[in-house]
């Protein structure tokens, strides 16, 4: 046992056991031979059974165990959406957007992209895509145009938009919790670059699909004939929901100043909406939480906690420092591009779950005298967090399996009889991913290194 970096190192056997569970778990998750939730839960059970982590550490120690801030933020937001969904708000927004596009296929595609991105910044990406895609399919049907560009663009835009805020994409939620960053930190640092990226994205899809999407005049009238007001099923609940959503948003904006964790804000919003919705059947609303995803997170946190405790992550972070030789611009760039390519292949949730403690360990070695937020918010470390967030979120656009939203649209297309092959997604997704990460790279270099603001 050699104490190093303040961590008590485990014996050799435990090191290899934890590493084996981690590697095997990730291989199984990538291979999709076993459902990822089952892999994560089984891995977590093994970590506990092998004595790599004590149960107390897995459940109650922030450094090694489950990040309940992430878990409760996710659950609360899911319940809020489950309450709002039946009001018809999302269908209303989508039909309204299509009419705003005056039936022009590309205008509608672009407006949908912006709406999807904005919604994704506040909702989970998969939820957004699931809510908007049915209407985009309807619109494509009405205009007799290929629905595939609309579906692919929905996924890409939701991954881009989700990057903009703390609550937009799970990697950001995880990074925020680990690095103790606030909602406004994300708004100040990521939202500006995402607005630029989104502008570039609109130009890119104009080149990609602008000329191909054509329709006839009389078909445009079909869109203009739709009445979005018919979508609203429960106006009273909708008003309540919008008021609570606005409150939650205000809560997020001020959570840093008020010293509330984001999960507290979301939980309070969820409780308030449950109370005001007058539901007599909370069971159904709670049952619709994506428990598979929640347990995937729980399991992953414990598996990663295992390799943190035995020192594997610390070992890897030493390698990263050796590689970049403490050059922080280099570290940011490597972090950005490596995260992007890794997330295009691997689910970005396990990737960020692993990188989070690695970044913390790296910081501990670079600035051994610092701790707490002085360490986590070291001016030279901040661009590394932003690079991780940008790379992990935007990288998901690279392939059809890079992000959950992509998997969902490919599945939706298949069900509706228009197949999106792996190659077809790649042909749109990869250039978009490279472009967006490139823009992010320029932003990081310009803002944090050249101008240093």
């Amino acid at each position, binding site marked *: 046992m050699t104490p190093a970096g303040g961590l008590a190192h485990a014996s050799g056997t435990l090191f290899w056991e934890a590493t084996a569970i981690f590697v095997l778990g990730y291989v199984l998750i990538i291979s999709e031979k076993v459902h990822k939730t089952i892999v994560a839960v089984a891995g977590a059970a093994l970590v506990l059974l092998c004595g790599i982590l004590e149960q107390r550490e897995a459940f109650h120690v922030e450094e090694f165990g489950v990040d309940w801030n992430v878990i409760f933020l996710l659950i609360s937001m899911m319940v809020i959406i489950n309450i709002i969904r*039946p009001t*018809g708000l*999302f*269908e209303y927004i989508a*039909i309204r957007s299509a009419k705003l596009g005056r039936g022009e296929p590309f205008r509608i595609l672009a407006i949908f992209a912006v709406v999807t991105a904005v919604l994704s910044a506040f909702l989970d990406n998969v939820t957004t895509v*699931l*809510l908007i*895609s*049915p*209407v985009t*399919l*309807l619109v494509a*049907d*009405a205009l007799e145009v290929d629905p595939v560009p609309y579906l692919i663009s929905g996924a890409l835009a939701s991954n881009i938009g989700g990057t903009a805020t703390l609550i937009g994409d799970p990697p950001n939620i995880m990074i925020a919790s680990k690095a103790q960053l606030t909602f406004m930190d994300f708004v100040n640092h990521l939202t500006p670059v995402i607005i630029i990226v989104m502008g570039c994205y609109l130009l890119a899809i104009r080149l990609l699909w602008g000329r191909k999407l054509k329709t006839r005049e009389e078909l445009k009238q*079909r869109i203009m*004939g*739709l*009445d979005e007001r*018919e*979508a609203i*099923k429960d106006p009273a609940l909708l008003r309540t929901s919008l008021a609570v959503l606005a409150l939650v948003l205000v809560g997020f904006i001020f959570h840093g100043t008020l010293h509330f964790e984001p999960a507290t804000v979301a939980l309070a919003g969820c409780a308030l909406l449950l109370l005001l919705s007058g539901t007599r059947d909370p069971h159904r609303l709670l049952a619709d939480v994506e428990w598979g995803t929640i347990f995937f997170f729980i399991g992953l946190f414990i598996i990663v906690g295992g390799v943190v405790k035995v020192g594997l992550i610390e070992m890897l972070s030493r390698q990263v420092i050796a590689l970049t030789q403490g050059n922080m611009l280099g570290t940011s760039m490597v972090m950005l591009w490596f995260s992007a390519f890794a997330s295009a292949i691997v689910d970005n949730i396990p990737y960020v779950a692993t990188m989070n403690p690695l970044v913390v360990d790296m910081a501990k070695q670079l600035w051994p005298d610092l701790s707490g937020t002085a360490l986590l918010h070291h001016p030279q470390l901040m661009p590394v967090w932003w690079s991780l967030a940008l790379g992990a979120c935007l990288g998901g656009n690279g392939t059809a399996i890079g992000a959950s939203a992509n998997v969902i649209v490919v599945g*939706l297309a298949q*069900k*509706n*009889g228009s197949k999106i092959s792996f190659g077809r997604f790649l042909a749109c997704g990869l250039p978009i991913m490279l472009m967006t990460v490139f823009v992010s790279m320029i932003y990081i270099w310009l803002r944090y290194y050249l101008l240093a603001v």
Partner: protein
Amino acid sequence: MKVRDLMIVGGEHLAPGQTLAEAVTAFGASPGPKGCRGADALPVIDERGAMVGILSVGGLLSSLLPRYMSLAPVGDFSWEGMAEELAVKARGRRVSEAMATPVVIVHADAPLMTGLEHMIVNGVSQLPVVDDDGGRVVGMIYERDIFKVLAELMLGKGPGAQP
């Protein structure tokens, strides 16, 4: 009364590879509930003689609906001529894509009650009737025909009625 006493015989069979247009022709050429022309449902039988599904009028119509309609409440949004267009588009689609599986069946010698119960529990209005050995389809039994018999009894008419 047995299922056999009410079943309709002489309907055509569909093959999974047939088109919906061919299925519609077969519907028209098969007998429906007593006194009606045109079947409400036909069994789908593969080349080995096994029943692999059932195509009903309801099943055929719901297969016309775009899938996204089941994913979100967008059913209120449609345009003039949409249903007609969907029907034309679905002409060449295969029976195997529209049929319902697994098939709820009833034996010819089962009591009428069994047939009724199977329909109600499974939410269908007709069942293929199979013979006791091997499960060969011998006919169809319709909810409407069961209703006619039971309605007579309610009115105090028909066999075994108690006024």
